[in-house]
């Protein structure tokens, strides 16, 4: 089970955290977006303005994710 965190507007759908069973031990950010879209009808996650961090570092769509990583989806910032 992997906990995925959401910040900002993208959290409207599932709240701050969604626990998911990933289909494989390792998958890319893009593959994770597609997995969440297909299995949770979560099409908002395909919006590339929603950025992704792995262990609090911003990563690209090709970055590979492990089940032990802390993965967060961040809506565009509102600023202060």
């Amino acid at each position: 089970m992997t906990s995925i965190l959401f910040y900002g507007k993208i959290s409207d759908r599932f709240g701050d955290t969604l626990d998911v069973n990933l289909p494989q031990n390792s998958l890319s950010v893009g593959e994770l977006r597609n997995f969440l879209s297909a299995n949770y009808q979560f099409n908002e996650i395909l919006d590339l303005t929603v950025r992704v961090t792995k262990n609090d570092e911003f990563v690209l769509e090709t970055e590979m994710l492990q089940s032990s990583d802390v993965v967060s989806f961040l809506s565009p910032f509102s600023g202060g």
Partner: protein
Amino acid sequence: MDCRIDPSCEVKNFNEVDLDSGAIVTFTGNTRSQTKVGESIDYLVLERHPTLTLQSMQDISTTASNRFNVSGIRVIHRYGRIKPHETIVFVAVASAHRREAFEAADYLMDRLKTDAVFWKREEGSFGSRWIDTTERDVLDRERW
């Protein structure tokens, strides 16, 4: 824990830190009581990231310090649920001369309004509504 900002206290403390600065510029930002279309706001809610929010503010302050000839910078930003009229942000800049202090404070606020890692919602009788960065904020940011 009460995390409200007392601007007068912050100004006093900042002035005492760097007594040799010829110029001190401060900015206090307060929450508004109405939305852009005139609805009453009960709370402005700022969500933050546990690490990236502080990191973004430190990056903004460091960049300002390197870019402008200033001797001191202080930035305080609240998060959570904030009532109308309360202070949400306080910025202070010290410099030998006023121009650098004004510019650095202006720069800091333009960057904070667009690049600081916060997500804002306004709450009221209309429900809860996310707030996006405004076109004006983006244009202000692009000046730098």
